[in-house]
């Protein structure tokens, strides 16, 4: 493989590797599908918490969530391998957080089976997408993990038994899931041959 072929900076090089093409397209399609599901989960979640959670402009305190931050504004400017590494790390951190939310929602909304199922599915889907992104990174010859980012301090609400902070935590986690899946779709879309450079 020539230097040009092996370079992530040159999308044209990627098109010379059909199996990698297919892998990227497939993972991008998965990310696109999960972006839709993540939006549905978010809407279902806010509906069951009641207003003001579903109101436009609702902006609760941005509680730090253990092990996970939102994509930063500078994320889009990073090189592709680093973006994908951050995507994979976030997707790997989301499942246990979604499980915490699901367990709490099982107490708060026991008669909302669809919400509980979506939360369970989201944990599984996040894991699957994370593995798929890592496979793309491996195919590109890039380690799945970069240097570990700073971990934000654990959110007090994550261990609180009070209901309102638990609702806010779930709102944050579902929001983060939506953001990271959408971010992953965008990052993979830039690698799809014929996609935006």
């Amino acid at each position, binding site marked *: 493989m020539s230097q040009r072929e092996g370079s992530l900076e040159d999308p044209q090089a990627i098109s010379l590797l059909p199996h990698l093409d297919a892998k990227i397209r497939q993972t991008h399609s998965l990310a696109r599908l999960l972006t839709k599901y993540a939006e549905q989960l978010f809407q279902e979640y806010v509906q069951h918490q*009641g*207003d*003001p959670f579903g109101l436009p402009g609702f902006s609760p*305190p941005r509680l730090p969530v253990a092990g996970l931050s939102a994509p930063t504004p*500078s994320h889009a*400017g990073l090189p592709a391998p680093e973006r994908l590494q951050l995507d994979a790390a976030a997707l790997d951190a989301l499942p246990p957080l979604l499980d915490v939310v699901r367990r709490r929602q099982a107490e708060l909304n026991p008669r909302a089976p669809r919400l509980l199922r979506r939360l369970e599915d989201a944990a599984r889907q996040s894991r699957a997408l994370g593995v798929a992104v890592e496979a793309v990174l491996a195919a590109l010859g890039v380690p799945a993990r970069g240097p570990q980012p*700073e971990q934000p301090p654990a959110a007090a609400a994550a261990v609180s038994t009070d209901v309102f902070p638990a609702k806010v935590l779930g709102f944050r986690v579902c929001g983060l899931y939506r953001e990271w899946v959408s971010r992953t779709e965008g990052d993979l879309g830039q690698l799809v041959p014929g996609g935006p450079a």
Partner: protein
Amino acid sequence: MVGVPKPDHCSFLTLDTAVISPQDPTLLIGSSLQATCSVLGDPPGATADGLYWTLNGRRLPTELSRVLNTSTLALALANLNGSRQQSGDNLVCHARDGSILAGSCLYVGLPPEKPFNISCWSKNMKDLTCRWTPGAPGETFLHTNYSLKYKLRWYGQDNTCEEYHTMGPHSCHIPKDLALFTPYEIWVEATNRLGSARSDVLTLDILDVVTTDPPPDVHVSRVGGLEDQLSVRWVSPPALKDFLFQAKYQIRYRVEDSVDWKVVDDVSNQTSCRLAGLKPGTVYFVQVRCNPFGIYGSKKAGIWSEWSHPTAASTPRSERPGPGGGACEPRGGEPSSGPVRRELKQFLGWLKKHAYCSNLSFRLYDQWRAWMQKSHKTRNQDEGILPSGRRGSARGKRARAA
């Protein structure tokens, strides 16, 4: 690494900025609530002055609030309505700029009422499923948990059913380890944040509430050329086939385009039946169900199975309009409940006593009818009679058979 994301908490107030008391209270509908929002620490601008409350996203009138001190805003709510969502009503304390300082979820509702109308059935004596009606005619507004309990009447500990919602929202299924020939006591406990209630106890023996599967292999076929009859055959439900000597069956049938079923009730423990009095040239749908009456000597009524899958068949076409209505005619020539056949039965009974035609029977009657129909068709063809009864080109007149 370039571009490592930093925690994004620094520039926003957290939920530790203030605290609401009481936290997540449970209240009866119509009751009152006194709450406080106390600002903690010393972030700039966050004093009690300017704070306000919202409930489920709607700002509460200022007259309901009052400043208790520099850091505490109080709230008085009266005559509370039932909670809007089961996860609790969101009572939120806001800073002057609208940012959220703290929240508390209110649970306003009613205690549960006594569940009632428990009914149970056992499928093939292997399990027990029970249904009940929740006590409150309206909502309790709070999540109410229902627990079905059971125990052997004279000994044993209380057991709790674990498989809920198997036959509707208020049902539970006990899959195994049930005793026969000894009564169970069954009841339902309803619990929510405001209290609990218990149903009356239902006492039953599993053998008295047995149901079974619908009869399999239902076949419907014509009876020779008889245009108003269909023969129905089925097999005893296999799970209880060794116990069904007293079982009852019911047949229902309808014309293809109709939604009205006719039910034939008096089918005892047979596995075949003949439907009579049907319309010629008509497609019928037929179903059969079974009641395992008398299992192990039980004197109770038993519970009807579901209906079998519909089986369809059509009666032969005829030019004569068929008789209306119908009933099941058992094979073997036993009289049915139709008026013509009832009179015929009486006639045959009289004949046997007073005449020497001991070989007369329904079988012979059916054969006579088949012969009559065949010769009627032949006559119509000879006379050129069309289906509507109009005459076509005739080959010649013939006297009608007597």
